C-alpha cells in the first residue's frame, strides 16, 4: 500500500476539506446516525452470556430431536446435516431462553404475572402478514 506515503499530501481532517467535501462528509455521518441500531443484539448477547455463566443443563426438546436424528444411518447423515445444523442453532436459542426463564422465575412474582399474560395472549395474537411474506421473499431469492 502506498497510501502511507501519501498521507501528507492527502487532505486529512474535516476542517481542511473544501465546503463541498465537508457537506458530503456531514451527509454521510448524518445518514449513518439515522440508521437505527438492531435492538435484538443486546438480548442475544446477554442470553449467550447467561449461558456461559450458568452452563445450563442440556435437556431441551431439540436435544431429544437431535439425538433421534443422530441415530439415523450414516448414509442419511449428509442429507440431514444442514437440518441438524439448523436445529443446533435452535437448540442454542432454547437454552438461552431456559437460562433466562430459570432466573426469572426465581426473581419475582410480578414478572410471573407478565408471563401468564404473555402465555394467554401470544398464541392468539395475529398480525399483518409481513412475517409470512418476508419468509417467502427470502426463499425466493436466488443469489
Amino acid at each position, binding site marked *: *500500500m502506498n*497510501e*502511507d506515503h*501519501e*498521507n*501528507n499530501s*492527502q*487532505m*486529512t*481532517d474535516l476542517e481542511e476539506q473544501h465546503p*463541498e*467535501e465537508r*457537506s*458530503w*462528509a*456531514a*451527509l*454521510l*455521518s448524518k*445518514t*449513518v446516525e*439515522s*440508521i437505527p*441500531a*438492531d*435492538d*435484538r*443484539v*443486546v438480548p*442475544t*448477547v*446477554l442470553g*449467550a*452470556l447467561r449461558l*456461559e*455463566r450458568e452452563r445450563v443443563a442440556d435437556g431441551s426438546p431439540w436435544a431429544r430431536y437431535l439425538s433421534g436424528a443422530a441415530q439415523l444411518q450414516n448414509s442419511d447423515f449428509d442429507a440431514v446435516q444442514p437440518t441438524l445444523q439448523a436445529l443446533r442453532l435452535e437448540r442454542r436459542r432454547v437454552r438461552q431462553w431456559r437460562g433466562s426463564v430459570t432466573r426469572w422465575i426465581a426473581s419475582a412474582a410480578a414478572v410471573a404475572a407478565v408471563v401468564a399474560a404473555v402465555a394467554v395472549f401470544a398464541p392468539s395474537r395475529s398480525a399483518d402478514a409481513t412475517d409470512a411474506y418476508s419468509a417467502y421473499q427470502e426463499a425466493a*431469492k436466488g*443469489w
Partner: protein
Amino acid sequence: MTGALTIRFTPAPPALEQLEDAALVLLAKRGQDEAFDELVKRHAPKLHAVAKRIVGTEEAHDVVQDAFINAYRALPKFLGEAQFTTWMHRITLNCCYARMRKHPDRGHDLELPLDASDAGVTPVEVSENRDLKSALEAALARINKDFRETFVLIEFGQLDYASAAQILQVELGTVKSRMNRARASLRDILEGWGYRP
C-alpha cells in the same frame, strides 16, 4: 428519647448506568456480572453495526456474541491500558476475520447486499432519506475493503481516529487517508446514483 421517628438514609451506590466503562470493567473483574451486562448494553449495538457491514447481516449477531463471550473470558487479562470500547472493537474485528476465513463465500451479500432492489435507489427518490440509507449501504459494499472498515469503525463504531488506528494497527495518517478515500468513493457512487448533499 425524643419520641421522634428517625429515618436513617444510607447513600445508595451509584446506578451502573451512571458509571464509566473503566469502573464497570473493574466491577466486572470483581465478579459483578451486572456490570458486564451494562457494558454489553452500552456497546453491543455499535459493535453489531460495525460487524454487519463487514461480515453481512446473517453473521453479525454471531460475531458480536462471540466477541463478548471472548471478552468475558479474557476480562481478567484486560489491563485497562486501552479503552474498553477500543479493546472490544479489536476483538470484534478479529471475530469478523475468523468468520470470513471460515466462510469465505459468505461475503457475497456484501458485494450486492440489497441486490440494489431493496434500496429502490433511483434519482427519482433522491430526496427521501429512507432511500439514502439503503443507497449508502449499497455503496459501502462496493468500496475498497480497507476504506470500508475504516469508515465503518469511525462512523458506525463512533470511534475517534486514534482509536481506529490502534484497532487497525496502522498509523494515524493512514486512517485519515483511508477515511477521506472512503468518503470520496462513497460520494462518487452516490453522485452517480443521483444523490447530492
